[in-house]
Each structure stands twice: as C-alpha cells, then as structure tokens.
C-alpha cells in the first residue's frame, strides 16, 4: 500500500519510537493504483534528493553560561556558547567550531543543517548556580525538527519521563532528526531553568536553520516575484525580537562564519546581493516588524508584504535583494517608546 511504500522508501533509520502499525489506506482499489504510481515517482525523486543531499550527522557541544549584564544591581543574563561542532559525513569528519564566536552570545550559535541531517547535541551546564536550586537545570528544547520524548528538553513534571536537563554535574544529549518536511528556521531554547517554563527570555535561545538545498525561495524584485535558489543567498541575518530589543547574528554564507551583533544591530549587505532575514520573536509581546523601503514575500503565499505581526516563538523568514539602505523596527507602542530599531546598511 501507498503509505507503507513511502515510509519504507524514505526512512533512513528505524523510527524514533516503536510503532505498532502503519496507517491503513482505505481508498478504493483503483484510486490506490493511481496513488501507487504517484508514489513510485515520488520515491524516485526522493532518492535522488537524498543521494544529492547526503545525510550528515552534526555532533555539537553547547555550553550554557552566565554572562554579566554589566551594571551593578542588574540581573545577569544567560547564553549558549558553541563549544564544538563536528560534521560527520560517511567517514569524513569536519570540525567547524571556528565558525562560531568563542564566547557565549545572545542569540546563541545559529545551527545550520540540511534537511536529512541529524544532530547529536550535548549540553553542558557551566555556570555556578550559586545558592539557587532553581538554576541547577538547563536544557535545549528545539522547535520544528523530529525528536523523541527523551529529547524534548522538558522537566519530568511535564514529560513524565525524566528531567531532560544538563546540571552542574551532568551533561545531557539531545538527538534531533531534520526529517523531510522540517526544512525551515526554528528556535531552540531553554525549557527547564528557574521554572518549568525555562529561562528562554533570559538569553538562552538561538536559531536552527534547516535548509533544503535543492529548494528555492521567492523574492520580491521591484514588485515582481522572482524565484532564487537558496544557494544564492549571500548573508543570513538571525534577528530575535525580544520584548525590549532585537538581538542579532549574521552569517556569511561563503565562509559559514557567524558574527554576533548583539542588541538592535546594524546590518550590512552588498548592494545587489540576496540576503535572508530569519526573524523569531521571544518573550511576551506581540510585534509588528517593518523594514522601510522593502516589500517581501509572506512565506507560504504569493503576497508581497511590508510589515508582519509576529508573536512569541513564531518565525518569519524572507529574502530580499539588497537595494537601498533602510531601517528595521518593531512598530508597536512600547517598542517605539523604547527605540527598538536598527539600520540596514546597503553598501554600493
């Protein structure tokens, strides 16, 4: 039956959790036949895609740390630091740790992988919890990709299995599978520090970008939809929208090098180059993102938009061709009052 064919064709390894039965297909026989044909075609395409994309394993070590806020009396922030990132592809291992900042950053390191890849992420708790038991657990909960209940990054109180945390004495390893259908940009964040909700709004967050290398994305060029290859993107801007500031990182796609830009950063791009914005909101406020002088494609649609309402942990990803310098901002009352904005400098 069709459902089984697709599963057996696509599964690279056993399912994360045992499954007793595959879903039954209840269509009439003649319909089933049509679908079998379609499935065979799909199967061939899929295999081709896999052959091209490979199936890499990313062995990552992430540290959760405290960073001083810099002002006496102000509470400290927390942040993730990339301690090691090794890409295994067949027998080849590539160490890409040098792409990342050497210190903990907000947002945390952007983990860029391809659809079909897997991640083995080991989290270490490397700050002194002081006297507070509520600081003894820290985790990584990821959005979007596949993982089983042991890699949920939640407390036993929620998942009924275990506290899936790193502690001062024990690391924790999470296993993610960027299965087909998970391409996109997703947040990862703490879920266990201080409370069962975690301290995601204290700096413990970052982005996971799952690329489908063969895919394209629509870009607005002078009011017309233009399709560009993902590989044509020169720079990625990861912009987390907090309740009182943007926090940014940029990635040079030629080198893979990541640069931490911290709060309300100035972004820069070469004129004419394609750049991609990865917006993820975080905190309690609803935001209204604007990038003056630019219109872009609302993902999933054919619509060109000039502003986007984004709520906590929603993502909004779009590409533009750098034309003229501009300013991005969060156009809400409190964000305007605080000056939540930054420059987008286009260099001729």
């Amino acid at each position, binding site marked *: 039956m069709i459902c089984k064919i697709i599963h057996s064709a696509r599964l690279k390894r056993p399912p994360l959790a045992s499954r007793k039965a595959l879903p039954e297909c209840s269509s009439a026989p003649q319909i089933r036949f049509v679908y079998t044909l379609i499935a065979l075609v799909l199967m061939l395409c899929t295999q081709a895609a896999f052959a091209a994309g490979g199936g890499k394993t990313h062995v990552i070590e992430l540290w959760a740390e405290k960073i001083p806020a810099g002002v006496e009396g102000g509470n400290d922030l927390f942040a993730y630091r990339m301690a090691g990132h090794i890409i295994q592809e067949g027998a080849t291992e590539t160490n890409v740790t040098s792409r990342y900042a050497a210190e903990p950053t907000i947002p945390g390191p952007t983990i860029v992988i391809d659809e079909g890849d897997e991640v083995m992420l080991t989290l270490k708790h490397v700050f002194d919890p002081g006297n507070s038991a509520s600081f003894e657990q820290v985790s990584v909960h990821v959005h979007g990709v596949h993982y089983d209940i042991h890699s949920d990054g*939640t407390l036993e109180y929620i998942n009924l299995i275990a506290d899936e945390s790193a502690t001062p004495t024990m690391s924790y390893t999470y296993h993610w599978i960027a299965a087909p259908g998970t391409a996109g940009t997703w947040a990862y964040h703490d879920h266990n520090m201080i409370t069962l909700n975690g301290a995601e709004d204290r700096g413990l967050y970052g982005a996971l970008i799952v690329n489908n290398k063969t895919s394209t994305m629509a870009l607005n060029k002078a009011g017309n939809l233009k399709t560009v290859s993902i590989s044509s993107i020169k720079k990625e801007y990861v912009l987390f929208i907090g309740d009182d500031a943007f926090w940014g990182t940029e990635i040079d796609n030629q080198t893979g090098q990541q640069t931490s830009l911290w709060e309300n950063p100035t972004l820069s791009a070469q004129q004419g180059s394609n750049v991609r914005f990865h917006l993820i909101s975080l905190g309690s406020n609803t935001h209204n993102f604007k990038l003056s002088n630019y219109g872009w494609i609302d*993902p999933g649609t054919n619509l060109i938009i000039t502003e986007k309402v984004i709520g906590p942990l929603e993502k909004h990803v779009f590409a533009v061709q750098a034309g003229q310098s501009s300013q991005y901002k969060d156009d809400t009352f409190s964000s305007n009052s605080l000056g939540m904005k930054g420059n987008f400098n286009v260099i001729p």
Partner: protein
Amino acid sequence: MNSIVFRFNRKTMVALICFMATLFFSSIALASTTHTINLTAETLPNGQFGYKMVSHDASNQNYPAEAVIPGPSLIVQQGDTVNISLTNNTGVPVGINIPGILEGAAEAAAGGGSQNYSFTANRTGTHPYYDEGSGLLGLFGALIVNAADGSVQSYVDGDGTITPTDVADLDKEYIMFMVGSTFWGAEIANGTQTPLWTNPVLAATLNEVVRFHVLSIEHDHTFHLHAHRWLDEVDPVNQGLAPHIIDVKILTGKADSHAFTVKAGTEVGAGMWHLHCHVVSHMESNMAARFRVDEPGAASGISVAGASPYGAILLSPNQNDPGLVTFEISDEPGSWFRSTRSDAIIDPAGPLGALNIKTRSLEVMAPGSSAHFIMSDTNAVHTITTLIWPSDADTENKHDIPFDQTKAYRGGGIVQLNTPGLYVFTCKIHPYMFGAIIVDDPNTQGLDLGEAIDLVTGIQGLPTTSDLATRLLRTFFVVTAQQNWQDYTSATPWHVAYPDVPVRLTGGAVLNLKTVLENRYGQDVVLPPLSAPTTAGVGEVWINTQFEKTAGKTKPGTITVLDTANWTIKRKIALPSINMNHPHNMWTDRNQSTIFQTQWFDNKLTFINRADGQMIDNIQIGDSPSHVMTMPNNDDITVAINGENRVVTIPAGTTTPASSIATQMPGQVPANPHGHWITPEGKVVTPNINTSDTGFYDGSSGQILARPAAGGNFPHGPHPIAVGVGKDKVYTSNLLDHSIDVYDFDGNRLKTINLIADYDPVSPTGPTTLTDKDGDGLVTAGVLPIQTPVDPTGRVVVTANTGGTITLIDTSIDKVVAMLPCDPGCHGVNFGAKDGGGYYAYVTSKFSNRLIVVDPDPNGDGDFSDAVVAGTISMADNSAATDDAVVSLAGMGGQGVLAIPNVYNGWVQNLPSEWQTGLTNAQKNAIP
C-alpha cells in the same frame, strides 16, 4: 494556481466521481442544509457563564446536556443556512458575534430574553463565536464550516508528505480556546462532543489523524505543540510556491482562530507532549495543557478533563471532580479580585449568603481544585502573585507555589491548590489588589486557615494565630469591602464587617473569625471629628481621590482640589469624557498652569488646565503610568511607566513623548519603576518594584548610573515604591520590607532605617507586640511605608505607612523621631507652603475620605519630635464645582497629592513671580 493544502484530495476525487455518477442516475443535486439551533446562555455554579445546546435540527452531533465552556461546537457545511435562537438565562445581556459572519447583532436581554441570529456559512474554516461583553467569562465557542466536498486541512506526515485529508479521515477533533491564561478544551469524536474544561490532557493513539481548532478572544496568544508541525492556513487564492510549515501560531485581535491537522506522534513517537501558549507571561501563569500520544492499546487515546466550574468548590453539589473558583481582575475599587459568584456570596439573602463572607474577594474550595483569574474588567497590566500561602504548600506544590510572573501582562492565570490553608493573591504593580482562597479540607472542623503561613517577603512558618497573620487578615477584609472603609462624613462609628465563620488555626484551634478579629482589633470605633488647621496654607492642594465614583463613567477616580486659604473643596474633576481611570499622581509645569495626571489602571497621561479644570489633552504613555514629575532644570515631564520598563520624557510645553530612559539593560527583567523623584542635579531616581533595587539614571543621557539593592529586613521582595530627595540624600521606602533606604546622590547606600524595629510580628497580639525594642525611647511602627518625600529644606522625611501611621525621620540623624496616627491605607504625602512660613505635609489614605494635614515643626525650631496633626479635612463634598456627579465612595481612595505652588527645592526657584508673592523668603529659598 494549485492549492497545496487541498491538492491531491482523494476524497474530492471520489466525491466528483460519485457526483457524476449521481447525475447519471438521478436528478438530485447537492443542496445546502438549514440548521435550526436553540442555544441558551447560563450561569454556571462558580459564577462563570456558558452556552448550552438545547436543540439542533439537522445535526447528528451528540451535545453535552449542560452549559459548557467552550460552548457547543456548531458544525456545518459551506453554504448551509444557520438560524440560532438564543435564550439568555444569565443576569447580563448576552449576544453572539462571529467575526466576518455575524457582527453587531442585538443581544438577548438579561433574565430570560431571547434573540434570533441568522447567517449563511459561506466561509469555510473555524470561526469563534462569542459574547461581546462577557466573552472572557465563558461565552465563547467554535463554528466549524467544513468544505462541501469534506476536505479539511492537510497534514504533514512524518516523511514530509503533505497528506490531503477528509473530514471522514479525522479520528478526533479538539477545540482549544485560549482565554486569559487558560486553555478551555473540548473533544469531538464520533459525533459526540465532550467538554474537557481547563488545561486538559488531550489524548490520541499514535498515528491517529486529529484536527486542532485553536481559538482566542481578547488577548494575544501563540499556540505551540511540542514535536509536531503543521501547515499554516493560507487562503487558496494566495497560495505560494512552497507550503509554510509551522509549529507556533499567533492568535491576535478581538477574536481569532487557527485550525490544523496532525498525525499524532508521527515519526516522533508516543509521549506526553507539552502544549502551551508561548507568551512567556502566559506560560508563567500556567497556560499549558498536554497532548498525550499513546501506543495503541485498550485504554489509549482517552483524554482527561481539567478543573471545571461544576466541581468541588464550596456549596457545589459536585465535590468529586476538581472545581474552579474564578476571580475577575477588575478596576472596581476594593473588588480588584472579584469572584464571579460574588453577587450570590455577599447578598445575605442570596444563595450563598449563609456563608457570611461579606467580601467579593474571598473564595472557598476543596483541595485539588483550582483558582482561576481572568483580566476581564481592567484596562491595566497586572501580575497574579501569591502574597501568602500555607507553609507546606511550596514543597507539596513546588512548581506552582509561590505563584508569580516575571512581568506585568494582560491575560489571566490558573493554579491548582492542593494544600489546605489560606492563599492570598495580589498584583505586584498595584499591591493593594487582594484576592483570597481558603482551601478547605472537608474532613476538618472550621475553614482551614492552616497551621502557619509563608509570606512573599521571605517570612516562613508564621503561625496563623500571630498578630501579623490576623492583622493581615483584618487588612484584607478592610481593603476588599467598600463598606469597611472609614467614612468621616458618617456619624456612625467605624464598623468592619468580618465573616462570621469558624476557622481552624495553629494547633487545630477552631475559633470564630469575627470574634478573633474583633477581640484583637476592636469594633465600632468612634472616628475623631474633622477639624481644619487654624493656620492657612498657601495656594491649592490637588488630591487624587482615586476611588471616588461618579455618574458619567464606569471607571473610578476624581481629582479633588482643596483651597488652603479656607480649607474648602473648590472643585472635583472626574473627566467622564475620557472615562478617567484611577487618577494616581500629579505634577505641574513651572507656570503652575497645567496639571499632569497619571491614570494608574490605564495607559494614559492627562493634561489638565489648572485654572478651570478642563482637559487639555489625553495621551497614551505606557502601561500603568504611576508618577509624573518635571525636570527641575528644563521643565521636561518625566513619567514612570510602572507596568513596564522605563521612564518616558515629554519635552516641556508639548504633549508628545520624545524619548525614554530604560530602567534596565536590554534583556533584563523589567524594573517596573513606581514613584520616582529627581535630584537637583537632574538624576532620575526610581524605586524599581520588580527588581528590588533603586535606580539612579542620568536624566539627560538616559544612562544607568547605579542600581543599588533595596531593603534589608526581607530581601526576598522589599518592593521599593517611592522616593524622596533631600539636600544631599535620597530616601526610598520599601513597602514589603517596612524600611527606608538612605542613599547619597551616587547611589551608595548610607543606611537602612527599619520602621518595624519595635514590632513583634509573631506573637499573638498583646502589650508586647509593640514595645521600644530598639531602645531609642520611642515606640514607633511604620508598617508598609509608601510615599516618603523630604521637606523642601531637606531636614525631615514624612512617610505615609499603609498600616495606619505617619512616621517622621530627622535627616540629621536618619532616625524616626515621631509617629502620628493615620487611616487605613495611608498612602500619599507631599509638602506645601504654610502661610507665614514653614510647611504642611498633606497626607492621604486610600480607605478613608479625609486628608490629614501634618505640621512637622509647629514651633519652627527644627526639632520634629513635636510634629502634630494640624487638621483634618473631608474629601467628600457634593457642593463643589464638578464635571460629574459623585455617586458613591465619596472622597475615598486618597493617593497622589500635589500642592500648588510647588515649593520643593529645585522647583520653587523657578516659580513665576505671581506664585512667589505668597511665599516667605525662606520658602522661596528653601536650601540657601
């Protein structure tokens, strides 16, 4: 263009084939159905409302027999005609609104009125239906319009395949309404609708195909389900090249919806998957449910309902299932936490009147039931924070007690309470908002107040028989019942109505609560007569009678303008045209011509013409603006945004905010500044209530200079709340620390003055609870200090203590040198010039209606130990000029005070000459 969501729909193909076959064999065409639906709106046992399905012709749905939250799901097909008859059995008008389908239709009258609604279901999808006025109390449900061909949202299979789905493929459908900080759930399976109430465990068997209908009203939410992903909903005509696969979706605006289909646990397996709102404040107030994906088995896929309005609360017939008491967060004075069944509770002849509870803010329920809060009657942001809880509750229920949120927000809260005893909730922004719950073990005698309580300040194991515990209880009953406030216009003695109920205290003692409180703190106290000061003041005093209610508006609060030449009320300003809401604090410009007025339970700053009381402008400034003050050097206006994270600056002479001083670095916990002051050199000093520090900021650059920690008695939550600035020192009152911090202008702490050094909180009340423990020869207590200005000469600090005293600190020795009596909720103080020299301190109280005029130095010798109450003046006056008629709480709620001319050092020097003429040379030059 090909629709991604609906392409390859095999059921569509089947339907088409069937349809074509049908055309061959008969002339029957597809016809739309007409639905005749009879709904009622009912009051539920806990006082919330719900819609109930009475009958639905043309439906095969099996509806719940009772009124439910969310209301019954109305499932129709595109093109169907829907006729609804609504009968309203509640006590408020109720209607039905459906965005884009049924808007602005008439409501059914309270108490049995009915109304008909008709529409054609042209738009496929899931739509919220709700009542405009009382929706947040339970009047909401889902209208599901399925496509005529039966196709529903496709799901993303574990292998990434976008799988077309038909309504017949769905094993289950879930309704999840996001309301306040609570999920209200229901399940639809095999045509049967089952209520799952609050924060349920939704269950499905692995690989079942289920559809979620997520809906919202009023507040913004983001829905997140762990380990699953789904298709964003896109109108087929706008379908792009690639699908948008998401795992979080915002619901925003007045009402919203989002529907999607998932295959339960596909490629991630079975598990107890978390499902929650991703708005941090809502997460912190428990907006979470579960999606339990089971391995196939006999008991797999059985959902578990949460606490319901029909469950185990006091006097409910159902004491078996977990129940829910619900408090509306309200701007109504005293009833800031108002039980939704409080009409029945406080009416002695009402169904719950036998309880004799006498306040709308106290509820009783069984262990294991939940307290539920909904910010449905307020314009402000709040927190829902435990102030008091049974001492063992925080270990037994460690994830929920203490209950608190990092920042103020809009929404609600829900918390299951398992340990018997007393729980008191407050709002950190407005710390006199109280709601209490007694979790009563049905197997013990008397209502359980518990052995001991913990306080948010860090006090642990306080016996419920202690003076502090019963004093707090007394405070709770005084604050939360308007009839318990001190009315100085009444000839009858001050009577505090207490619940006449047996309670169980430390050691299992069962005593009558009323008797305990009356024995300890007296009853029917004769209030002293009012008497105006014999010496006049200079100019006017503007008082925020913040709770006074007038006819022309729903929100409380007036400004009472006192003429100090003859101590008469010269004007009342209510501003009904803008529904002025809780006017809290004022300041004026250099010319003394414009009054700046904050609305603390709103987000507005109002500009008023001092001379005639007319409004000049009313602007949005930020959530819960508390205090306003001008910069002495340039007259720019600064406003503390108490509900948020900044001080906003408005250039002098304008009404447009220009910049902000952030009270913390980006990413840090918001400081929530309350009553700031400004030093002569232009430093803005803020009491940061949420971060327990005093902030020193450069008023021109906005730079953070220092943030020294506040308090010392109870470091868990000192709650710094107001600042006074003297010649070279800053004084900050710490509400919950009962202390005053003294800093130099650079933020170095010089001293912490403990205002309760003479008080023993633990012993039962008696002669030893208040004695001269610090050996300074004086017996003084300043419980819960608030406003604490330094006089213009910098020599004396006058502090209003909520506990009902006024304390004076001599700044040459930084010690309390005198204590004077005040009223319940003693709150505001500011200085004004006394005729002929010297100053008066004008002191207001929230739960009385008189102004107390303190002369800190009657003989002008610089020794403040002989300070006296020079006079008292009623704030209730129905004969004064007014823009609205006072209808209740006359003169009550005294908070902000402003004397005009403004004679504080730094400002007095800039007074125009006409305002200087009434002042002595010493007053014109306060600090030579």
